[in-house]
């Protein structure tokens, strides 16, 4: 199991489009990927689940990944958050 902390860098928070990109990226891996905010833990492959976290700009989230490709998954997902899903500042 690997884990890492990420911060929401999008100024609009995690909206539906962003949630969908996160879920798509997560679904490429076989590992079980959980994302949590405080005590709430959600399956990162579920778009409604991710959206329901209601994570606004600056929220800290924790990724917990378990499976054969956990390292790759963590790298890819952390990078996605770091460069705001390859988006500009306000999108």
């Amino acid at each position, binding site marked *: 199991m690997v884990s890492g902390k990420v911060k929401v860098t999008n100024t609009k928070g995690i909206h539906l489009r962003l949630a969908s990109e996160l879920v798509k990226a997560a*679904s490429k891996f076989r590992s079980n990927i959980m994302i949590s905010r405080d005590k*709430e833990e*959600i*399956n990162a*492959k579920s*778009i*409604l689940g991710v959206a329901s976290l209601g994570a606004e700009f600056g929220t800290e989230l924790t990724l917990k990944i378990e499976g054969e490709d956990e390292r790759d998954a963590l790298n890819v997902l952390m990078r996605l958050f770091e460069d705001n899903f390859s988006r500009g500042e306000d999108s």
Partner: protein
Amino acid sequence: MSNEYSVQQFFEDNAEEFKLEAMTESLESRIPITGPDVHRPAFALTGFMENYLHERVQILGETEILYLRTLDPAEQEKAVARLFSRPLCCIIISKGLDLPPHLLPLAMKHGVPVLRTSMQTTEFIHALTESLDLYFAPTTMLHGSLVDVYGVGLLITGRSAIGKSEIALDLVERGHRLVADDVVEIVRKGKIIIGRGREHLRHFMEIRGIGIINVMDIFGIRAARIQKRIEVVVRLEEWDPSKDWDRHGLDEHTTDVLGVDVRQLVIPIFPGKNITVIAEVIALNHMLKVYGIDAAKRLDQQLIDIQESDKKTRKYLRYDVE
């Protein structure tokens, strides 16, 4: 799950409903409320300190107050001081009774908040326990779809993209009711497991290829439910010929949800298989079992009975050669 409830927070959440007033200026307690049970410390007042459940919310009702009034002032102070010989989270006076004279100074000295309700003691204890029960109830979140099928709460689970939402949608289309899709919030009340949708996700669904839909908008109020007791977990797995699938259903299989054994069926799926009908049959068969009718057991018993009667006939005919 919450393990601690600060008295301050408890007061803010419930002051109106329980008609509470704060008697001490500060509601900061040294220890928080840690469980749903309450205690009436009548015996502790008399000096019998065994089984004084001091960590619980302490309720002073008419019995306790009337007893204190029978004592002379010095004895009364001693009796009240006994309450504070152990750490307390808070004291609540019921029925709007007058506080014993020594209570407040001692409470402030020991950092114990004192509240008072105008509700009747028994009525208040029932309401309080119910509210604390809910606060301390174990909760979790599960990935799956919860549908009320003929009144039976079926939680459909399985790996991502196996088709849980599609089955839930199919069930809704056949007149059953969706409780939650994808993320199910679970709370345990006693031995009962209740599932509901996340508040701002209620009745939204994601269907691959379509995107987000809202079941209540499309199918109307009859297709939606806010919460439902979970009675059966239907676990979907890809058909695997090497796996040992249940063929008779004589044995009960369960899965653990928050410490409660919930009936679980593992259903193999493959393209073109109609899981919706199977889900309906699971619900109906579950209801029959609740009524004491079990098809697998009945057939098993019939087979045993037939063999018994065959044996008797054979025995009768054994030397019957004409």
